[in-house]
């Protein structure tokens, strides 16, 4: 029974046009198109950045310009990104809101249009939601604040809590990590800063909904989360974007730090419109006996490149990446995971499920590194791909480097197809072709989704239904 109740929510309505809308926006601040030192200065002035941030951004801009795009291994589609055509900063200039009543009506309408049900809207009372560059709505749950937890936008984080912010900012993912982390470092705005003090176990997941709502507008959130010794946190991030004709760039950087014995879970469900380049760098640093878990669901976008990673720095640290990627017609999901073992007895687990539909393409890219001098390290990697119709393509590039004795790695991969017979069987029970495919896909990811918090498994099921209904011609 319990399983059924988690998967079904009768009050949810599926709207075929969901996501295919936008409301007029009037922006108080607009950095214009293109990226120069002047753009950086504009952003710094508007945001009243401290000098160290201005310097940080300018240095990042230089690195961004010097760094080539990933060459031999990545999709050629990256060459279609024209960096000069983007706006790198837009803002309504509004301060983050504290209560639901203060949220502008058009923002509320957008949330409503997203089909967030009553129950989840109640959830929003404890949510930070980013609307374009700045958080349009931010309400820190009282209980969380009382526990000493800091949950603010990145801008407020760097201004109000520099002693913690500066210590870790850019340390897990250096500016020069890759071209897109450099880009983000130059123009970042929005995103969350969270600090959970020692021993504090945050019961309710902290949550942020955000969406792109302006044409040609790149979104560059920067999130930094530090969970101190023995503390626990679950953070949930969700994005759905309206559809536009021209290309949109999204390039976030998310840094996680788990101190000794801490537990940190970061959950993402993304549903980008099919013109979005989603190029995201996500990495966690796990200290002794701590645990970092990424749950990452990628639906939509034109090209997603994202490989959440964990650096297992302390003895007995544990890293996990559970990911689902759905590549519909014309889309490429290039996703995976990185596990860098840097201490004895560290363990990592990667479970990746991908679904390719029509001309959609799913690529798994994994990196597991266990150096020679370590002992007692373990990695488990499972990659399963589901193909729907013959055009679909899936590739698996697992790079597992294990040296030394006493370390163990396991790797399993499978490719399966939704067969015509299976669809016919389900149709014979009265399900439409779209419903049948949707159920097959949900079945394929079911075991993994069961590990997600309930709200997210419902959300994901709804997104999959929407994708599958749309994919039946």
């Amino acid at each position, binding site marked *: 029974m319990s399983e059924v*109740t988690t998967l*079904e929510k009768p009050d949810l309505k599926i709207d075929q046009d969901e996501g295919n809308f936008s409301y007029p926006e009037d922006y108080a601040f607009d950095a214009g198109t293109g990226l120069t030192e002047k753009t950086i200065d504009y952003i710094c002035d508007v945001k009243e950045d401290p000098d160290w941030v201005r310097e940080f951004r300018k240095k990042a801009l230089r690195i961004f310009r010097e760094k080539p795009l990933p060459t031999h291994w990545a999709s050629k589609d990256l060459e279609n990104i024209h960096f000069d055509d983007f706006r790198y900063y837009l803002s309504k200039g509004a301060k983050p809101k504290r209560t639901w009543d203060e949220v502008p009506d058009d923002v509320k309408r957008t949330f409503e249009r997203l089909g967030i049900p009553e129950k989840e809207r109640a959830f929003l009372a404890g949510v930070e939601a980013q609307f374009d560059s700045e958080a349009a709505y931010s309400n820190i749950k009282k209980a969380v604040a009382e526990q000493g937890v800091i949950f603010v936008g990145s801008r407020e984080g760097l201004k109000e809590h520099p002693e913690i912010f500066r210590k870790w900012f850019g340390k897990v993912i250096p500016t020069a990590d890759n071209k897109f982390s450099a880009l983000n470092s130059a123009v970042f705005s929005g995103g969350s800063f969270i600090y959970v003090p020692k021993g504090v176990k945050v019961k309710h997941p902290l949550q942020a909904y955000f969406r792109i709502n302006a044409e040609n507008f790149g979104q560059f959130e920067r999130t930094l989360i530090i969970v101190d010794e023995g503390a626990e946190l679950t953070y949930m991030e969700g994005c759905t974007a309206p559809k536009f004709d021209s290309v949109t760039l999204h390039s976030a950087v998310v840094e996680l730090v788990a101190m000794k014995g801490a537990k940190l879970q970061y959950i993402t469900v993304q549903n980008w419109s099919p013109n979005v380049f989603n190029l995201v760098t996500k990495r966690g640093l796990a200290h002794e006996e701590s645990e970092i878990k990424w749950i990452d669901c990628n639906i939509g976008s034109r090209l997603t490149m994202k490989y959440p990673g964990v650096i297992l720095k302390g003895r007995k640290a544990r890293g996990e990446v559970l990911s689902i990627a759905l590549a519909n017609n014309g889309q490429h999901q290039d996703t995976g995971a990185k596990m860098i073992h840097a201490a004895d007895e560290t363990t990592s687990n990667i479970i990746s499920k991908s679904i390719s539909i029509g001309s959609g393409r799913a690529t798994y890219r994994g990196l597991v590194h266990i150096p020679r001098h370590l002992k007692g390290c373990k990695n488990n990697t499972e990659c399963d791909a589901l193909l729907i119709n013959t055009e679909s393509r899936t590739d698996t590039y697992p790079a597992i480097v294990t040296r030394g004795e006493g370390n163990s790695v396991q790797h399993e991969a499978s490719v399966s197809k939704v067969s015509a017979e299976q669809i016919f069987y389900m149709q014979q*029970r009265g399900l439409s072709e779209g419903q049948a495919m949707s159920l097959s896909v949900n079945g394929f990811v079911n075991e993994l989704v069961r590990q997600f918090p309930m709200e997210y498994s419902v959300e994901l099921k709804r997104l999959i239904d929407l994708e599958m209904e749309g994919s039946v011609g």
Partner: protein
Amino acid sequence: MKNSLEIKGLKASINGTEILHGLNLTIPKGEVHAIMGKNGSGKSTLAKVMAGHPDYEVTGGDVLLDGKTILGLDPDVRAREGLFLAFQYPSEIPGVTIANFMRAALNARRPEGQEVDAVEYYNELYKKMDLLKIDRSFTSRAVNDGFSGGEKKKNEILQMAMLEPKYAVLDETDSGLDIDALKIVSHGVNSLRGPKMGVLVITHYQRLLDYIVPDVVHVMVDGRIVKSGPKELALEMEKKGYDWVENLATV
């Protein structure tokens, strides 16, 4: 004709080869009919064509459900009109529990926003499972995933019980069953037969008809019904063999 499933002069082919050569058959509601025939006589083709399998092309004739043609309708529309096919080889649906699958199937029959109530659904499900003597844990397993032959057929019968079709076609339901499984499946069909449902049992062996006693037996040879008669015909078939009717067919 109302209250019957009528197959009139049905011709169907696969990859350009005609398998059904003008088949006639009427199954009134409330009756159980059996089709016997050798492998390759077109029995399973008939079942698939009625259900709307996309590999088959109908080249002539008609199939009428309560007087309305169902040819040209998508398989799911035919199903919702009340036609059920118990598959000879049911597909596996990994990760989808039987309970969820049937609930989705029931919801597909209802207007949007009027999904089945969870409590009512489970009451109904457990009632049917008790009737069919199926263990409660059965429906939390993924549909046919790793099932034995007997479990797969039991699952088909359970779905038939839940979906309450007007007409049910059971394609080689006895194949791959040991005697115990055969008894359970037959018990299921016998519990469900009644005035509201017409049943067509397709089988290769007479054995099944000891357990599901038909009202009428039809013998199929080379894509046509060549002989029909009362239940005793099955025994006669068993005794005289298919050669006997094949001679009839050529006459």
